[in-house]
């Protein structure tokens, strides 16, 4: 829906007044609440609680979601104005971080596929920041070949009985609900016997165990379902058509992962070539003293520039109603290349200083870069690996036949 400039100006004035009345000055430039902020023992101060409550009640934490389910009911243009006004006063939106996967992935999928009752039950608490969601997709033996998943959901008449194990469930230990792909028919070909189930995490049949990663952080869990239960009306979308529901959710996910280093918001980090100069030094012409490294750094910087220009071009084309093809998969892979190259170069630039783990002898920014290098290896794996994105591009965009990918 297109808004006239006068309408947008009126909305801007309304947003500005509301923010002035409701945003606590103490939270200026404080950033987002960390994942799992609702966990016991994690301190969230009263102002942060109050801000989250008023933003949630207004629906502006999920500004474009329908108002009848607790969203803001705003147009995209109004949402952009709201974002500008919040940025202007240093306010951030805590709801997406608190909801974990609720705002970026599960919520939009429920809005796409849910019944009226399901929307009424699940959407408003996400909007208010009261409920956190995780995603149960991957299993120990079903990664890239996701459709081979084996977690079972048996129809027990008045409930579903669920048994199996999920892995890489981000934030599962803080989540209230899990959007899980489960097998509901073992007699059908593998993609046709899958359903999308909404499973409460707050039951004795569900346990989680954090996974420690090579970077030292633990953002993921293993999640075990041992005779867990789901109500009959917790099936999202039609029975045995969960593959389509699940793919839609992944599209919502990819749309949130195409940023790439240097193209996101927030303060611009020091450019990599400036960091390189401090570690490597320069020659009499002002060039980086290691010319081989210089050549590889400039390639990374140019790749990042091309990525940023493409992000802008896609946005401009979308505005001009030009068909934007293929954007998500190519941008995810491009972001991966740019980000991982950056991280590898940072380690190389810092030499020994890039090889610390913790403690004395290494600065915080050095340790951060090392951890980011390790953590960044996930970028080409999660959300559909680099190779899976290439399958999607070759098959769905270029129209090449699918013969080597069985399923």
């Amino acid at each position: 829906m297109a808004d006239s400039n006068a309408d947008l100006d009126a909305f801007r004035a309304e947003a500005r007044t509301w923010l002035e009345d409701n945003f606590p000055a103490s939270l200026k430039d404080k950033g987002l609440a960390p994942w799992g902020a609702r966990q016991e023992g994690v301190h969230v101060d009263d102002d942060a609680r109050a801000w989250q409550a008023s933003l949630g009640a207004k629906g502006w934490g999920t500004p474009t979601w329908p108002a009848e389910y607790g969203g803001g009911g705003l147009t995209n243009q109004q949402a952009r104005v709201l974002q500008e006004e919040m940025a202007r006063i240093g306010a951030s939106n805590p709801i997406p971080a608190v909801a974990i996967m609720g705002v970026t992935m599960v919520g939009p999928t429920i809005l796409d596929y849910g019944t009226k009752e399901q929307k009424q039950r699940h959407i408003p608490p996400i909007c208010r920041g009261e409920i956190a969601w995780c995603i149960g997709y991957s299993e120990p033996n079903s990664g890239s070949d996701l459709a081979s998943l084996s977690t079972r959901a048996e129809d027990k008449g008045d409930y579903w009985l669920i048994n199996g194990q999920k892995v890489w469930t981000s934030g599962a230990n803080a989540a209230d609900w899990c959007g899980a792909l489960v097998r509901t028919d073992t007699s059908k070909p593998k993609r046709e016997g899958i359903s999308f189930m909404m499973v409460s995490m707050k039951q004795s049949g569900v346990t989680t165990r954090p996974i420690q990663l090579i970077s030292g952080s633990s953002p993921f869990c293993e999640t075990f379902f041992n005779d867990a239960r789901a109500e009959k009306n917790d099936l999202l979308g039609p029975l045995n058509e969960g593959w389509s529901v699940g793919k839609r959710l992944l599209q919502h996910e990819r749309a949130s992962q195409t940023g790439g280093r240097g193209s996101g918001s927030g303060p611009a980090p020091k450019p990599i070539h400036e960091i390189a100069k401090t570690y490597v030094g320069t020659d009499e012409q002002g060039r980086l003293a290691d010319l081989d490294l210089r050549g590889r750094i400039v390639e990374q910087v140019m790749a990042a520039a091309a990525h940023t220009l493409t992000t802008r071009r896609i946005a401009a084309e979308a505005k001009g109603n030009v068909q934007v093809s293929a954007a998500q998969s190519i941008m995810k892979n491009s972001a991966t290349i740019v980000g991982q190259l950056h991280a590898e170069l940072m380690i190389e630039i810092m030499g020994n200083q890039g090889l610390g783990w913790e403690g004395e002898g290494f600065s915080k920014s050095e340790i951060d870069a090392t951890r980011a290098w390790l953590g960044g290896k996930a970028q080409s794996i999660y959300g559909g690996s680099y190779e899976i994105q290439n399958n999607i591009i070759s098959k769905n965009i270029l129209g090449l036949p699918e013969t080597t990918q069985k399923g």
Partner: protein
Amino acid sequence: MAALTEEQSMIRDQAQNWTSSESPVKKFRDMRDGNVEAAFLPETWQSMIEMGWTGIIVPEAYGGSDLGYLTFGLILEETGRNLTASPLFASALVGASAFTIAGNEEQKQGWLPRIVDGSTIATLALEEGPRHGPEQVALKAEKSGNGYTLNGSKTFVMEGMAATALIVPARTSGKPGDQTGITLFIVPADTGGVSRHRLQTVDSRGFANIDFANVEVPAENILGEVDAGYGPLTQLLDRARAGMGAEMLGTANQAFDMTLEYLKTRKQFGQIIGGFQALGHRAAQLFTKKELVRSCVEAALTAIDEDADNTQELASLSKAKAGEFMHQMSNELIQMHGGIGMTDEFDAGLYLKRARVLENAFGNQAYHRDRYARILGF
């Protein structure tokens, strides 16, 4: 593709229709086989003039349409796709830009309308060695009377045999390698002392070596300020690089489309070969690069149209990224076609040969990576 205006869409459609019906690769092949000295067909050039393509970046006051470089890029993309041979790039983009950037009022009035109506074919005669080096100008210009006398040689001059006016950077002071001391001269190609030698290049296009022996140039043919030609020359080269980026994008995109078509039709081991992941993934990665390159090319052309501060940076980005993609794409074009790609009868070789010439012109990938780093200060 950038969000285009209605006029730009019309011009792109016209260019697509015209090149595919009037100037397909077959036309270029026939010209090559006919060993035409000018390396383009007169009727091709005449049609371009009639369609107004020679005036795209020329202000209306001098007979052009002043539609800008992004619009010119749309045309060059299509001529690049079909390997259409003509002096369009050398004269209507590079030649015309030399006058709009550095020309005085009299020079603009004298030359631009003639470039637009095709009675002048202008070209830049810059290089003196095998590698791009705009500050390496050595060709000597010595003061004589109220003008200058030129002595020296230029190599690999684009459309050098067909050109009627040469834009010649020459050294009026200092030594090769100095940025100051370069002056731009306009030299009609029929001036006494100018001798041209046709080069037969791998891409079968029009190039010449040109010798200057005691060539007299009057003062009114100095383009811009004496000794201060390097600034406008750099501006001119960035326009050439950005425009060439569009041509390269077109050439590489055609190579991509030919390859994709082959992957969808060729059968081996009882199946369409595009179903092999070893090929499908390479196609997917090439497609990703293709989209990234388009953004760089359009950004550089737009920066020129908007007179942006980062034009140099974007021109180098565009030329380097388009060069990298075209290099890889032209090799994959041959490789994925296998044996048929090696035959002269098939068009792949024409694209490969053209690719290397375009890559090398106005600085190759390595040149522009180095320049980009220098612009950013490292």
